[in-house]
């Protein structure tokens, strides 16, 4: 009766194997590594850099244990810190010929030492939270009102252009916070304008008000469009932050959206909030200037003559020098948006810029006077400028909508649009929560959390084994299996482990033993009631199951509520707690039953079960170490 079919044992063995496999990476620890990432917005790191890094290290006589490209950086792992520091020197020397203007960031950090075949199975160590490894955490609030105002500003320009194009006379267009007000003197004009605007600007809702010759048309963003603006603002801010954080050379920065309008930035290994804030808060600026196309400037471009007075020499993205005038026509402040797109007629990829009202006016004047000449769009970062693009002006451009086209692929257009946007944050951000944890405190927290789990486990194990004898051993093994599964699942999901998370592991283990106690007590009770051992085991497990399910469901309800409403450290607790409840049901019921069946199930004439002394009220409490069934 207490036998599992072979496939049930197979499932248990598979679970054990998976558990061991995914828990394994956590034991290898971390090794020193060097990380190479892009130091400039305009430079993209790709797989080819891996080979370059490999050959540089080879020349320096260094052999990395592992060399890998992970999307935006190349990492090389070494056996000891000596090799790591040598590698860093060799790499920064070779990759950055100009140390004061580095193209690549070469930083020291740590990489898991687990072997490649485990990583290939996606078996990675648990991701440690900042409270365990030390670092800074920022929670930033994106100022959505500002993003909406900015959008309204650009729409104001659109409205002005549309009305002028159709020759509709208005009595003034102004932006009132996030609304666009258009004034009219008579009703027919307003109706005409309304039809046009409702047709052309589908993102806006228009309301009419006023009377006599003080007619007003007020436009607001539709809620859907406003939500889109906000989503884009957060996305752009995250992109910008990512570019800036790369510079810190942090191994695993976390930059994530939280809720609708918040961004979490976590930088492990950094404690210096001042520097982190400085880098996060820095703005790259965009400038539009004219290219100096005089004969002297052309000479200077070739390096044959000095740079003419009133001009400056900058490099284009390809590395070609270009001479631009010092005078700034527009700055990034006036640029409201940059998007990749396609030309209506030629189907060529383009980059479409949108300027605000002031920018549009200046741009129209400048382009009218300079048809056929080149203008340059420069991006300044850390005080260094670079030319993103230098298009030729074909016609006068009014209305603030600029299209840059010619000899671009779709990816190039997308990259350029990103660059033009990347300079600035879509909306200002404010730090609303900040946490720093020192590295020694983090290590301290790990050891404290670890020892609470271990000592608690040992105490429970010792008690169970003495009180329930062999069944206690089974229960303890099941509890160990539960711990193994929990760690494996956490590693598999790459959930962040925090100190509250470790506390949840401890608490879950403490609660998980409940199921085994229930089962063991039930089995004892059946034996006390006079059941034969095999029957008692069977009935004990069967009867306890309903209760175990009930009690776990109520605990799970509390866990899920925490998961849904909690944030930050509580979330970490809730995730582990919920997962732990699920793994404990499996291990306490299925796994421990498997052990019991394996041990006792094959014995046909089972006389006694080692579950500790069974005391019977009528028997007067004779001390027998194992229960013998009554003679029937």
């Amino acid at each position, binding site marked *: 009766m207490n036998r599992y079919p072979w496939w049930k044992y197979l499932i248990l063995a598979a679970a054990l194997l998976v558990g061991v496999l995914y828990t394994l990476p956590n034991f290898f620890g971390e090794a020193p590594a060097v990380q190479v990432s892009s130091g400039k917005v305009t430079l993209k790191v790709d797989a080819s850099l891996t080979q370059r890094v490999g050959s540089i290290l080879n020349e320096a006589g260094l052999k990395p244990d592992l060399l890998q490209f992970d999307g935006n950086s190349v990492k090389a792992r070494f056996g000891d810190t000596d090799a790591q520091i040598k590698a860093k020197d060799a790499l920064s020397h070779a990759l950055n010929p100009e140390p004061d203007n580095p193209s690549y960031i070469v930083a020291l*950090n740590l990489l898991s030492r687990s072997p490649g075949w485990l990583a290939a199975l996606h078996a990675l160590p648990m991701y440690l939270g900042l409270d365990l490894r030390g670092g800074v955490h920022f929670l930033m609030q994106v100022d959505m009102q500002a993003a909406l105002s900015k959008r309204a500003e650009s729409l104001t320009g659109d409205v002005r252009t549309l009305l002028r194009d159709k020759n509709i006379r208005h009595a003034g267009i102004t932006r009132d916070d996030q609304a666009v007000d258009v004034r009219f003197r008579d009703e027919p004009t307003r109706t005409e304008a309304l039809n046009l605007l409702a047709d052309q600007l589908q993102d806006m809702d228009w309301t009419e008000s006023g009377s006599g010759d003080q007619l007003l048309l007020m436009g607001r963003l539709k809620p859907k469009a406003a939500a889109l603006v906000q989503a884009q603002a957060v996305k752009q801010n995250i992109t910008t932050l990512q570019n800036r954080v790369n510079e810190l050379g942090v191994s695993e920065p976390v930059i994530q959206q939280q809720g609708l309008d918040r961004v979490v930035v976590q930088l492990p290994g950094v404690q210096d909030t001042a520097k982190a804030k400085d880098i996060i808060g820095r703005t790259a600026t965009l400038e539009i200037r004219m290219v100096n196309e005089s004969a002297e400037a052309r000479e200077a471009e070739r390096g044959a003559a000095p740079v003419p007075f009133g001009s400056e020499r900058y490099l284009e993205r390809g590395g070609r020098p270009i001479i631009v005038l010092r005078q700034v026509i527009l700055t990034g402040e006036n640029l409201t948006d940059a998007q990749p797109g396609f030309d209506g007629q030629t189907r060529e990829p383009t980059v479409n810029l949108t300027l605000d009202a002031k920018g549009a006016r200046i741009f129209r004047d400048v382009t009218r006077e300079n048809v056929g000449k080149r203008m340059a769009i420069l991006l300044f970062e850390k005080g260094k400028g670079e030319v993103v693009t230098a298009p030729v002006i074909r016609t006068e451009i009014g209305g603030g909508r600029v299209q840059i086209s010619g000899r671009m692929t779709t990816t190039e257009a997308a990259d350029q649009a990103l660059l033009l946007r990347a300079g600035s944050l879509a909306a200002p951000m404010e730090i609303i929560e900040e*946490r720093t944890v020192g590295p*020694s*405190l983090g290590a301290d927290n790990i050891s404290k959390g670890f020892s609470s789990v271990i000592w608690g486990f040992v105490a429970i194990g010792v008690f169970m084994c003495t009180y329930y004898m062999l069944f206690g051993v089974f229960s303890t093994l099941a509890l160990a299996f539960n711990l193994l599964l929990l760690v494996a699942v956490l590693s598999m999901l790459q959930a962040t482990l925090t100190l509250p998370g470790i*506390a949840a592991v401890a608490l879950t283990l403490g609660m998980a033993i409940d199921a085994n106690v229930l089962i063991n007590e039930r089995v004892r009770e059946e034996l006390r009631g006079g059941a034969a051992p095999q029957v008692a085991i069977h009935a004990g497990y069967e009867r306890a199951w309903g209760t175990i399910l009930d009690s776990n469901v109520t605990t799970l309800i509390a866990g899920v*509520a*925490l998961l849904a409403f909690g944030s930050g450290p509580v979330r970490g607790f809730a995730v582990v707690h919920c997962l732990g409840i699920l793994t404990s049901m499996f291990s306490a019921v299925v796994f421990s039953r498997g052990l019991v069946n394996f041990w006792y199930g094959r014995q046909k004439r089972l006389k006694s079960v080692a579950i500790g002394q069974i005391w019977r*009220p009528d028997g007067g409490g004779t001390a027998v170490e194992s229960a013998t069934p009554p003679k029937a």
Partner: protein
Amino acid sequence: MEFFRIRRDIPFMRHALVLNVISFLTFAAAVFFLATRGLHLSIEFTGGTVLEVRYAQPADIDKTRRTVEGLGLGDVQVQNFGTSRDVLIRLPVRGDARGDVLGASVFEALCKAEDGAVGNKAYVTPQGEAISRPSCDRGSAEPLTLSRTEFVGPSVGAELYEKGAYALLATIAGIMLYLAIRFEWKFSVAAIAANLHDVVIILGFFAFFQWEFSLAVLAAVLAVLGYSVNESVVIFDRIRESFRKYRKMTTPQVIDNAITGTISRTIITHGSTQVMVLSMLIFGGPTLHYFALALTIGILFGIYSSVFVAAAIAMWLGVKREDLVKAGAREHDPNDPNAGAVV
């Protein structure tokens, strides 16, 4: 070994009235302290700035306090944290000062008080991770280091407060609903009343001793709520079974029988969980201290309330055999997961 050698059912319900009066008085005291003293909320809820600094020698708390108070930042709290060298400084939210720069300026002032100069240390750990941190240097020595800072804006705090309340409500509603479906509304009400009584008593302890109520403590309170309810569930399960088995017993007798039958399991599981929690209390350090403390109180009162309070309330509510044992045909429903094995 067998700890519980009980010959006859213990007449728990005979003392139900007395015990309920005691519960009510504890509950009233907890509510009283909550109302008069209030909870000492951590900055996660109130907003503000916390700094934890470690001195090279045992810290002179008074000196530190004077230094921080000298900055005129309002109602600051300075206290030891864990060891005599670790000091925790709490600063309230101030309308005018920016919270995120406050921490740095306090550290600078503390550093000056130790005749040091604030600098920046960048180094590589023995493992090979590059680390930079603010430091306070006096010659080659470092009189104090910054272990941790935390700044929470007031809006975040208010939000957490709200979310915490939602989490509590969702847990209560979810558990009640589950129990009502699984058992009967009388049990559902009894279980929640008993366990909310635990929650209020935990909060009462935190209010009375003015222990810090943080997010972790809230998590502990909710975990205890789920956990103690399962204690009541086990007893209710037994009550249902006893109603089926012993047709001649009265309701109090059935309840006594069920509690007696489960008491050994109750004590052992709670003991095991308590061992784990004690291990956290002993080894977990100051960060987990109040978390473990809340759990300890919760677990102890959890035993008490499920044994003495929940069942008694169900009894006062007039739970009957007919409520739980439905018509005879359903009693032997083979699909009923609660029927147990028919041997």
